[in-house]
């Protein structure tokens, strides 16, 4: 029978490190899925998830238990991903001139007839990843949480630790940043 999270956490806090293992097993899929939204290389994803779990273990005493463990862990995961983005922002590419052939084809199909360009295509997936990679860390985080994961402003504020007005301001800026990047994509491709 599966032991409840609270029991496992209490045992881990009393020094039984093995009690932490079922928690890692249970929640790692969610943490991996979150990390894969912000890092492309699998080695980077594993580093992020490892950091999340090590932080979780060290900060376990600060988990009060008034909200589910999963929420607390996801807050840690999102903040660790944000730190990762900030630490790697120099690696951002600066232009759309090196699009692959399928990406160019997809864009041309979209220009000719927007409804014919399928969003399920791999090229569309690559293009959106390329676009997000060029955004600022805060912009990318906000667009991912708000537009892709469909979370509310309040949820984002809880996950990131930012205030609700700050989330709104950053969302406004992120949308403007995205629009600017799309304009550059159009210019690089067609001028």
């Amino acid at each position, binding site marked *: 029978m599966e032991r409840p999270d609270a029991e496992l956490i209490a045992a881990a806090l009393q020094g039984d490190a093995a009690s932490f293992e079922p928690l890692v097993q249970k929640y790692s899929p969610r943490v991996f*899925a979150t990390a894969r939204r912000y890092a492309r290389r699998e080695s980077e994803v594993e580093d992020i998830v490892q950091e999340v779990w090590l932080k979780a273990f060290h900060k376990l005493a600060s988990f009060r238990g008034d909200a589910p463990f999963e929420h607390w862990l996801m807050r840690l995961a999102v903040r660790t991903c944000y730190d990762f983005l900030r630490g790697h922002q120099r690696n951002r590419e600066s232009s759309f001139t090196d699009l692959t052939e399928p990406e160019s084809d997809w864009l041309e199909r979209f220009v000719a007839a927007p409804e014919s360009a399928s*969003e399920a295509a791999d090229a569309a997936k690559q293009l*959106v990843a390329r676009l997000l990679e060029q955004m600022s860390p805060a912009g990318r985080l906000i667009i991912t949480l708000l537009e892709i994961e469909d979370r509310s402003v309040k949820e984002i504020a809880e996950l990131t630790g930012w205030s609700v007005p700050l989330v709104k301001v950053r969302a406004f800026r992120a949308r403007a940043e995205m629009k600017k990047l799309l304009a550059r994509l159009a210019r690089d491709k067609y001028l």
Partner: protein
Amino acid sequence: MNLNSLRDKLLAAARANPPSDQVPYAFEKRILARRREQPVPDLGALWTRMLWRAAAPCVAITLTIVAWSFVGGSATTVPTETGEVVEFSHDFEQTMLAVVDEQAEEFW
């Protein structure tokens, strides 16, 4: 090109392709091994290191005060209105040791 429509299309593509939640084999074992490798903070050692670091400034302050009381002794003497000469280093020492002196007097 309609940028708003392109944005909506690309965001829909991102929503349609959620990232995989696959976990590498025995990942939890790796996490526990990494946790065991991390050194446990030894509070005694931290305290000792802090004391050693504090020792150097303390010795420096002591030597400065000693040097000041010997070399600059004449500069710290001030004649009072009654004509008595007050030496600051002497007063400082008396103040610092006042409690010990009082206890010694009570004891004897």
